[in-house]
């Protein structure tokens, strides 16, 4: 997670609070829009085109559980030789750390769908920015209402989460028949990890609870990259990613992850290389 994004947003929130101390009303959304600043910080102010013919961003209209909000990125099928999508960056504008994740799509893996879960702290726009191989950026956005009630973007069972730190699981889902012919697979990788945000102060010690989160996850079939993720604290605890890819006949699937304390997690699973 780039620190600059956190810093500049904090500064901007501070500034907006100074300029309009009573701007937060019970009814309306906050008038301050962090997106222009985020375009500058995360995307170096590069121009963006409307990406709605290229990518879909699916989220519930309301974050029911603030700690676990499903998000799906779906590349739309193309019938011409368009430049391929190289990366997708997911930005949750009003979160303390807006850049939630950057997905890098393996050149030969044909990833067409990625689902994960994020934390949502506030009423917010969410942006997905796809970069194509010609260097262009394509943006889509949606709006998510924060959860109500006592839901919070925090661990429900911190001890249990600690207990499965570093556990990794891979699962393949039975696909439709036509998927088998094309070799398309739907799979899921889970990592047991608290993904602590570090933004809360311990009231007893008055110290900030240190951040500890998975900042990199890389997936391969044999030695061919399928997907890599640069993650931040907006990704829910026990990072979970479900995706489609096209099998190259590989006999193994491998996941490697690293967290901000330098822990390395690595796991390899045998997969069925047939179905090509």
């Amino acid at each position: 997670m780039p620190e600059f994004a956190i810093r500049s947003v904090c500064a901007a929130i501070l500034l907006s609070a100074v300029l309009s101390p009573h701007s937060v009303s019970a009814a309306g959304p906050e008038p301050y829009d962090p997106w222009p600043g985020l375009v500058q910080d995360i995307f170096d102010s590069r121009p963006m085109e409307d990406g709605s013919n290229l990518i879909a961003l699916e989220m519930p209209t309301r974050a029911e559980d603030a700690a676990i909000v499903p998000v799906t990125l779906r590349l739309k099928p193309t019938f011409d030789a368009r430049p391929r999508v190289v990366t997708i960056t997911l930005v949750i504008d009003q979160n303390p750390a807006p850049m939630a994740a950057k997905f890098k799509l393996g050149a030969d893996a044909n990833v067409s769908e990625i689902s994960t879960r994020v934390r949502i702290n506030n009423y917010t726009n969410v942006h997905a920015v796809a970069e194509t191989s010609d260097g262009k950026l394509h943006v889509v956005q949606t709006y998510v209402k924060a959860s109500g009630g006592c839901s919070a973007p925090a661990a429900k069972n911190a001890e249990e989460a600690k207990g499965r730190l570093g556990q990794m699981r891979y699962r393949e889902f039975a696909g439709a028949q036509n998927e088998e012919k094309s070799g398309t697979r739907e799979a899921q990788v889970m990592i047991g990890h608290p993904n602590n945000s570090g933004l809360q102060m311990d009231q007893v010690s008055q110290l900030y609870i240190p951040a500890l989160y998975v900042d990199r996850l890389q997936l391969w079939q044999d030695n061919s990259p399928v997907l890599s993720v640069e993650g931040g604290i907006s990704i829910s605890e026990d990072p979970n990613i479900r995706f489609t890819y096209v099998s190259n006949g590989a006999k193994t699937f491998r996941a490697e992850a690293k967290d901000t304390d330098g822990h390395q997690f690595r796991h390899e699973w045998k997969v069925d290389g047939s179905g090509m």
Partner: protein
Amino acid sequence: MTSRFAMHVALIMLAMLASARAQQQTLAISEIAPGVFMHQGRIALMSSDNDGAIANIGFVIGDRAVAVIDTGGSVREGRQLLASIRAHTDKPIRYVINTHGHPDHMFGNAAFVADGTEFVGHMRLPQALAVRGQYYLDAFRRSMGDALIDDVRIVPPTRLVDGELVLDLGGRTLVVKAWPTAHSDSDVTVFDAVTKTLFAGDLVFLRHIPVLDGSIQAWLKLLDDLAALPAERVVPGHGPVSIWPQALAAERRYLETLASGIRKDVIDGKPIAVATKHAAEAERGKWELFDDYNVRNATAAYSQFEWE
């Protein structure tokens, strides 16, 4: 005297009257057993219209001291509870027990901060409040407004419960019991042995759909231990006072229905966004606020069953 001045005076008097009324207002309280009092919260979401007064809160009067069990969803509600207590007794409030760390149960704590008053909570409650307190203050400002939230202070417990803690009120004791993570990670129950009354906090819901902020498996598992408590009546966290342990039946049915459906969806590989949409459909119509919490409960349950 100008008419403008008169209007000002009238307005000021009106404001004083209104504020005096707000100060003196008491909560509707019923004595459900000798010396055991409760206010039954409305089954609703916390809002500026209801002062956040949606949870059941209460107090127990002993020979020498009073214990308060949860303080409500705003300092205004907390002050009204205090006024109600003072209408019944002038004995000192020695203990304020927070059954857990959710805003509707502890946003009124600040009304009870005083010398000689101990705040009692689960050993994990300080951590829960540290992690969530500021978020709650920010989030509830939206639904409850500045006037109510400006007064709220997150008051952590000064006395922690690990296992059981016995509080002596003179002539009667309260047993405060800390539970493993279930509805939340910091639930305690309070048992008055004299009247066999159990204040269950949000380990027990009636009419109000159960809210899962802990572990569904662990919650289901502890229902038998909970049912074994020698109580005759229960004050649930939400809903009417009921006969023990029959009061657990509806909640158990909901949690089991939710758990078995979601567990199957996880095994079948149904994605989380799909599985949660139609979870526990058979329970719709049996609970109030179903649409406000059911998908959320299902989401939490799904992410837990994935690790089974």
